[in-house]
């Protein structure tokens, strides 16, 4: 199958360990070869851009430069990392911007394409493989995309920010029912979790209310910050999964250590999903 360049970012090695671990397990199982960007660094996250614009471009650009030495496209599981890498890519689109970056980082012999991890799975071949591992379950899932994978639209040019579909497509292919609900691309509060957690609590509550109203018993996302905010700041007990964890269950390769990392016990939903294998 495909060969990709993989940029896990810091979070997938730390707070979102279960996302990183499940991603790698799923890729291995599906026979997708992946190689991490050599000597990759932090993308700058939220900190760099609030302090120094140049740094917030140069940090992700350095990752692109290192990726350029490998063959293939870069796939990014974390929404924040994806957003930052795309902004660096955009900055290199004009000659002036590229010159300035190359002055610091050296010549780029190519600028690799950058995609969100979901896009890897909505490829026809991969979808076909997923469809061979259908879950027979009545668990209803609300897919939640957050902001950073979708906006700003003109830079990312990824999915329709008002009507994203990729995670729904992946789960539906696995036989999992997803609900239609209006807050798929609503903001969870993002980085405000540290400075003004009260705002995040209000936003998360709204998201949870609509997910419950729509009949969902779990939320599935692809963004580590969204996942943390949704689980940490909610007053109910709705588990929030990464989509790779659900694929892992369907493929029968899920591990207990993933579930231990969750702040809301996902045991109930996990066993229901597993029952459908």
């Amino acid at each position, binding site marked *: 199958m495909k060969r990709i360049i993989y940029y896990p970012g810091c979070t997938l090695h730390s707070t979102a360990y279960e996302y990183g671990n499940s991603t790698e397990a799923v890729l291995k199982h599906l026979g997708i070869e992946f190689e991490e960007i050599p000597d990759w660094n932090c993308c700058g996250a939220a900190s760099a851009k609030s302090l120094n614009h140049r740094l917030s471009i140069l940090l992700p650009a350095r990752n692109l430069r290192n990726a350029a030495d490998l063959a293939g496209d870069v796939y990014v599981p974390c929404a924040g990392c994806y957003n930052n890498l795309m902004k660096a890519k955009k900055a290199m689109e004009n000659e002036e911007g590229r010159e300035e970056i190359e002055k610091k980082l050296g010549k780029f012999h190519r600028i690799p394409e950058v995609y969100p991890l979901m896009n890897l799975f909505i490829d026809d071949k991969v979808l076909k493989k997923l469809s061979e591992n259908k879950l027979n379950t009545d668990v209803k899932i609300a897919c939640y995309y957050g902001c950073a994978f979708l906006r700003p639209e003109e830079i990312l040019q990824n999915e329709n920010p008002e009507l994203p579909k990729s995670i729904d497509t992946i789960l539906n292919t696995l036989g999992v029912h997803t609900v239609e609900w*209006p807050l798929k691309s609503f903001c969870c509060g993002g980085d405000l979790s540290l400075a003004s957690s009260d705002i995040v609590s209000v936003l998360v509550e709204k998201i949870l209310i*609509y997910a419950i109203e729509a009949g969902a018993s779990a939320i599935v996302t692809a963004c580590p910050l969204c996942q943390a905010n949704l689980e940490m700041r909610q007053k109910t007990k709705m588990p929030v999964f990464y989509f790779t964890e659900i694929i892992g269950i369907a493929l029968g390769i899920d591990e207990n250590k993933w579930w231990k990392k969750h702040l809301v016990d996902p045991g109930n939903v996990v066993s229901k999903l597993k029952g459908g294998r």
Partner: protein
Amino acid sequence: MKKIGLFICHCGSNIAGTIDIPEVKKFFSGYDDIEISDDYKYMCSEPGQKKLRDAIVDRQLDGVVVACCSPRMHEITFRNAAQSAGLNPYKVEIANIREQCSWVHQKEKGKATEKAIDIIKTMIEKVKRDEPLKPIEFEITKRALVIGGGIAGITAAVDIANAGYEVILVERRHSIGGKMLELSETFPTLDCAQCTLTPKTVEAGRHPKIKLMVYSEVEEVKGYIGNFDIKIRRKASFVDWNKCTGCGLCQEKCPTKTESEFDHGLGERKAIYTLSPQAVPNKPIIDKNSCRFFREGKCRVCEKVCPVQAINYEMKDEIVEEKVGAIVVATGYEILETDKIPEYGYGIYKDVIDGLQFERLNSASGPTAGEIRRPSDGKIPKEVVFIKCVGSRDPEKGIPYCSRICCMYLGKHARLYKHKVPDGQAYLFYMDIRSFGKGYEEFIQQSMEEANLLYIRGRVARIMQEGDKLVVWGVDTLSGRKVEIKADMVVLGTAVLPSKGAAELGKILRAATDEYGFFSEAHIKLKPVESMTGGIYLAGCAQSPKDIPDTVAQAGAAAAKVLSLFGQEKMIQEPLIACVDYDLCSGCGVCVVACPFDARMLDQEERISIVNEALCQGCGACVSACPNKACQLKNASPKTYIAMVDKYL
């Protein structure tokens, strides 16, 4: 020796401020073939023209060069002046020393004077070689084609027909009236749209000079101003309209119901149907896509019940050929598709409707017989949110232009809603209120002050279904607060787009359309009803979004343009067009391919290429394409131009 007169215009200080006119005048006194070299402050003024006329008579001039502004401005002025003094107008040439010299070289006065002399020198060479020409005359077919049977098309057709000329009125749907017939009441007077319009539809339907061709589309247009050959496809209605009496029995008995396009999906109609109770003509068609007989091969109920045997399932489309001299394009508009604004749930939530759907809810002939009941459960909505600029003025998600009618019609909708549901609350989100027409601002003020409509300045971010309510998240930018309204129904003022197929029709007509598909006018200020193509005129929303008063005014103007064309005995065309040196032409046909106006064709017998003088615009494409140099433009032959360049060098 030729006798050429040179007249240099100061154009106030426009030319004289930069170019040393006495110097130029002196240079040309006694210059080869120059009989008189003169100047004047404003050559285009009456005294200036008199100088020119007098010189032609007194000095027996056989050519004139006027050194002044662009020929686009005053060439016609000086040619007419020369003609009145007895000189052939095509022996007058303009040396443009304003736009191409004084204006662009204001900081280099010496060089500008030299350049002006050079420009004049070259034009003297041209005048010396110019032939006297006569304008070309050809016949005009004094019949008009009007495309589109809405208020614009009907107005234009009736105006032209009343002047005594025949009109063919082509309408895509099977009755005329267009969008206006779907409206309930119209701003700013709140009078009933049908009551205003139906006298017009009836007049158009009955007019002896109007040939109504409904359920028809223009398929091919050939020819040129004054002489168009048109092919019109008359779509198969499966009902013989000559026999049909419009009794309506077939509609009553037809067992198949489907969504009504006239009610914008809110009501139902039968598979055999007329568009509305006031349809003109009042004849039904069978909709093949929903008819049970066409889908399943059995039924034939309409055939059985028709008392005059008018049903004919075998009917085929028919192509009708017509000749006309002028065309009015009045193809109207559509509104933005439902899938464009997913955050408002338009097309997803039943109670999020558009402005035209609200018109049907409010119309006595509509699906609720004029009662305001929401589509999902038929309840009377007590909280209704109206949102303006949905897709309009939004270059990122919709279209950048203003749709021009939404501010007014949503205000009107909200007021009509309050008339019918006095205890209901109407909220209107707006960017700003554009109430520019006569009586419009007063209407809006009255709505705010007396009808208690709540205007909120701000945008709506999202609409969500919550139980049987629609939660509207917006912002009030005047107070800087977020607004959340639990509404029963939401009405969107969606963007106005050109009607479907307008751009394709533009190609058929060879009339330019803009990037959105609206027809382009020839000049935005001075030729707002003329298209870029001669003989094709524009009316209503085909050109840009418009309200009814502006549409009717433009339709009247388009009719006046048609009539001023038909008022001429013969069509007069500039003779500065292509001609062929038959001794050099080998009949290869390269010019036929090169011509963008279909003005060139091969004479198969003589094996030479000929020019259709009425179609040729004198663009010169054939001249550069011709391998034998047989094609030439009159008074602009390569020899003349080489002489002009030689003089300059």
